[in-house]
């Protein structure tokens, strides 16, 4: 297990154990964290799992895929540290990851 801290737009924090190999989106959905929808089930088709990766973790979470880049380019409030978190798989080196959630996913 590796821990992820999800910070809602309101500031409320949720620290969740997410199994290695499981996506950061799935970790939130499985545990009922409000603010991450994951409508398409993790297919990178819907852009409803948008998060802002804490800058300290950005390098370790890798780079956006081309598909993800395209979906994010039209999402509301996209920043340099925006990711679709269905595309971030948990690993031991991401233990402690912090992501912030946008105001909405739709």
């Amino acid at each position, binding site marked *: 297990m590796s821990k992820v801290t999800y910070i809602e737009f309101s500031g409320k924090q949720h620290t969740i154990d997410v199994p290695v190999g499981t996506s950061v989106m799935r970790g939130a959905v*499985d545990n009922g964290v409000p603010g991450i929808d994951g409508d398409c089930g993790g297919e990178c088709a819907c852009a409803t799992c948008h998060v802002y990766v804490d800058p300290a973790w950005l390098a370790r979470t890798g780079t956006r895929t081309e598909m993800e880049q395209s979906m994010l380019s039209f999402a509301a409030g996209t920043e340099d540290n925006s990711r679709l978190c269905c595309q971030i798989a948990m690993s031991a080196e991401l233990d402690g990851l912090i992501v912030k959630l946008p105001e909405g996913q739709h």
Partner: protein
Amino acid sequence: MRADGVVIVGAGHAAGTLAAGLRQGGYTSPIRLIGAEPLPPYQRPPLSKAWLKGEADPAGLLLRPATFYAQHDIDLRLSTRVAGIDRAAACVHLGSGETIPYEHLVLATGSTLRRLAVPGIDSDGIVELRTEADAQALRTRLGPGVRLAVVGGGYIGLEVAATARGLGAEVVVIEREQRLLARVASQTLSAFFADFHRAKGVSLMLAASVTGFATAAGKVTGVMLASGETVSCDVALVGIGALANDALALAAGLVCRDGVVVDEHAVTSDPAIFAIGDCTQRPMPRYGRSVRLESVPNALEQARQVVARLCGKPMPAAEAPWFWSEQYDLRLQIAGLSFDVARTVVRGDPATARFAVFHLDADNRLQALEAVNSPAEFAAARQWVSARQIIDPARAADSALPVKQIIESVPGAA
């Protein structure tokens, strides 16, 4: 005494999302989720794709972990059928005879596959694909050299054809209409998918009507066509569309018309009863009509409307309908509905398997867009369809122009 809480009939994608969303939204009254299938709410889209191919983790199919419901005080009753709704008494009757009272009732009963009423349809080896159990039955039959006949060239049929080819099966797709995806896609898209499937070794038989199934010892051996031809097969998948499960609503006297009629916020003709997902006939003000949609985003949008209503939160903004399909390494994404289309414009070259089809009305407003391996066009179109954006056909067709610049210099563009 008045009952407290919500009863959700159905435990599919819409229902599961609703139950979880209610708890996330702070709903504290009882939630009872009643499903006919033995599984907790799960995702159906992978059943014809990664899951059928054996690439997906079985637990990953579930919308939420099986333990989620008890943890969040959601009373999940599986393998349970609802026999009727008593609106006067505000309760539902279960098949077992038990009665469950409700304050609010939500019908999330989904759809049922259309049956092909021809001789031999009940033979062994003829399968359909709606549930996880259906997918299990199909998966155990597919493999290298197996001859699969797909009856119906719609999304389910084509997705299964693609997956089956990946598993080494020989595949024939039999479609009654002149083209694949005849009801749901443009000519350009139909022709593209036909070419692509043929190139992958799928045989297509268009304008071919099925008259029955040939059998031996109760097992299917072929599909008989009106032309007199018989297509030999070991397995036949029938995917010819679905019908709304609105029988409970009809019996309860709710207004139904090809689905349970709801308003823009998923309320039926009884203000205490909502309906969400495939079973609904919903208004679509963007197109000035009412529609019945079979799609996950539609189900989730309506689930969120009910969450907003029952949790006293602001109603979410209306979204343009959207759809997706995956076949081979192709990703198809569709935004909008192609009503009132005066012209279509193709951006990119279908021969490269990367293109988009713009559907414009008489004023060049974007009604819908079909995108193959073109996520930027799709993402833009979701916004443009909602905004009734006017598109310059020449700019749309100019694939050298970045997507964001398609709408620049159009008078009145945002």
